[in-house]
């Protein structure tokens, strides 16, 4: 399988923009019940050990010295909620998250980690400060979308799950504040265009389906550092 993955990486390299679809694992889609059970069974994270793994697994070379993100190519992890980071690592490992060639890196990495490792790095990132905050921005073109949602399109306000300042919500709902805008754009598009499937019962995707490119750009800027 790993060999196959490499081959695909390489083939996609020269195929230009279109990334070849990796062979999908028969991953089990999330249900609220299973997610609840998995998060309840999440090992106690050790942030000190997590910091070591962050170096040993070269996480720092893309995500930054404290997970603050070094470039537009990779998301910030600092201040991220531990259950979210933990769930993402499980999703990469199990083949639920593989929206582009970038994800392939994480698939290989996550398959080398134990669940304890995952909880530890998650604890390390959670112990770092968030890279920014997204307070009320009156007059911003998507302030209403963030704060009130859009009842016409059945879009719940972003802030109701992701927090009033984008600091993240309960359990696995991630913080968005201070995130790289390019990453937020890629993510919203991936949900909207049905190339990312690791949410529970399309809990995120359903709000992205109706977003325009302009709204996605504006939302990303709203939350970006």
């Amino acid at each position, binding site marked *: 399988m*790993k*060999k196959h993955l*490499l*081959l695909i*990486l*390489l*083939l*996609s*390299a*020269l195929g*230009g923009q279109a990334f070849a679809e990796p062979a999908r694992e028969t991953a089990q889609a999330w249900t609220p019940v299973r997610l609840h059970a998995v998060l309840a069974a999440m090992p106690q994270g050790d942030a000190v050990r997590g910091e070591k793994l962050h*170096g*040993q*697994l*070269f996480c*720092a*070379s893309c995500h930054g*010295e404290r997970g603050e993100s*070094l470039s537009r190519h990779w998301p910030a992890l600092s201040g991220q909620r531990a259950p979210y980071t933990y769930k993402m690592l499980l999703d990469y490992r199990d083949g639920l998250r593989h929206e582009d*060639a970038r994800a392939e*890196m994480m698939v*290989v*990495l996550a398959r*080398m980690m134990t669940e304890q490792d995952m909880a530890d790095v998650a604890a390390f990132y959670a112990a770092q400060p968030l890279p920014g905050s997204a307070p009320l921005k009156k007059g911003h073109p998507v302030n209403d979308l963030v704060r009130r949602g859009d009842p016409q399109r059945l879009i719940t306000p972003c802030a109701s799950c992701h927090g009033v300042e984008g600091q993240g919500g309960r359990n696995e709902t991630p913080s968005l504040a201070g995130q790289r805008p390019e990453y937020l754009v890629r993510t919203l598009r991936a949900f909207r265009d049905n190339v990312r499937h690791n949410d529970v019962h399309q809990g995120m995707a359903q709000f992205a389906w109706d977003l325009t490119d302009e709204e996605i750009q504006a939302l990303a800027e709203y939350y970006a550092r």
Partner: protein
Amino acid sequence: MQRRDFLKALGTGAMLATGLSVRSVFANAAPHVVIVGGGVGGATAAKYLKFADPNIRVTVIEKNPVYIRPYGSSEVLNDHIGMQDLEVRYDRLRERYGIEFLFDTVTGVDPHARTVRTAGGVQLNYDRMIVSPGIQLLYERIEGYSASVAESRIPSAWIAGNQTRLLRDQLHAMRPGGTFVIVAPPNPYRCPPGPYERGALMAEWFKVHNPTAKVIILDSKDSFVPGPSMLLGWNRLYGYNVPERFREGMPTDGEWPMKIHEEPGMLDWVAGRDGGRVLSVDAANLSVETEAGRIEADVLNIVPPMVAGKVAFELDLVDETGYCPIDRRTHESTRHPGIHVIGDACVADAMPKSGFSANTQAKVAARAVVDLLAGRDTQAPLWENTCYALAGSEYGLYVADIFRLVDGRIARTEGPRFLPLDASRAQIRIGALYQQNWMRTFTDDCFA
């Protein structure tokens, strides 16, 4: 963490090397830069000149309309990729950046009049020229070897193309238990880890497809880059016994120790001190005469000595070393003003001859050319290079360096360079992942 400091430094280096201005000072009289050679160096220079100032007219003169990339081409031999995966086209450079391409051969340059002529009868005026001619192989330096032998029977496959395909087919048809002999070149040469990676990738392939086969690497040198970390990989994967003098720092216990193997493994490296220097080749019998005696091969792959590409000689840019002397700050030839030389063909001191080096040198030269055209001083550059290499398809190695000017020469800065010998299995696996990702992103940086 050393690695992180290093990465930070690398990031800064990249920024400095590529920190180009976007304000045009050429709004009225757009200068014309002619680039000779459309490989990694030439393509990158063209793109970064346009990044610096889209008003500069850039023309690339290149023989072949489709580039066959040499970096990563050993992965054709083990069917990791196909020949077609090596092909790179120039459409993006043309369409996105307005770079002009002339598929033709340069026949002469007048450095005083600043004109260049081609075999197709075109004459172009230029304000500055960048030459990125790569290398040419000196087959005849080895007795019994020649270009025609290389094309038909004993490929070098060091400039990717028909010889790559030939070598791949020979290896796949090799008799069970046969011997694959690689003759590594003397310094300096393109892609320092290349011969050793090639041997490793074939050993890995033989383990599955021809498990009693042998790989022998003959060398006139006593060491190579990335030496010990590659030798350790061979030890772990192919039963190679690491010579005493390279064992320092290798793990003897823990997760993945170096072992002393009772039986010799399938891969061997014969260093110069052990008689690995090749004296002559018998093409008819597929054997080589070495200082240690005669070695019979079933498949023979010779990487001969090399010098700057032909066009560098034709343009009189080469000195007695076989390479092109330059002012390191600007990459301008010290033999002919107005002509800059980058890539494998230039004398770059501590920098290895690699695609990565050519790419960084192209960025440095592009900035210098823009500054010179604008009548500005150019800052002292920084260069970087990373040579990725595989000891197996999931066993990655690298040597990473940042370079700067010291007394007019390109010198390596101090810092960690290699994947440490006590690297974990995960780090080694990630190294291979980086190598594969680099293939993709690097090709994009040069050609898209």
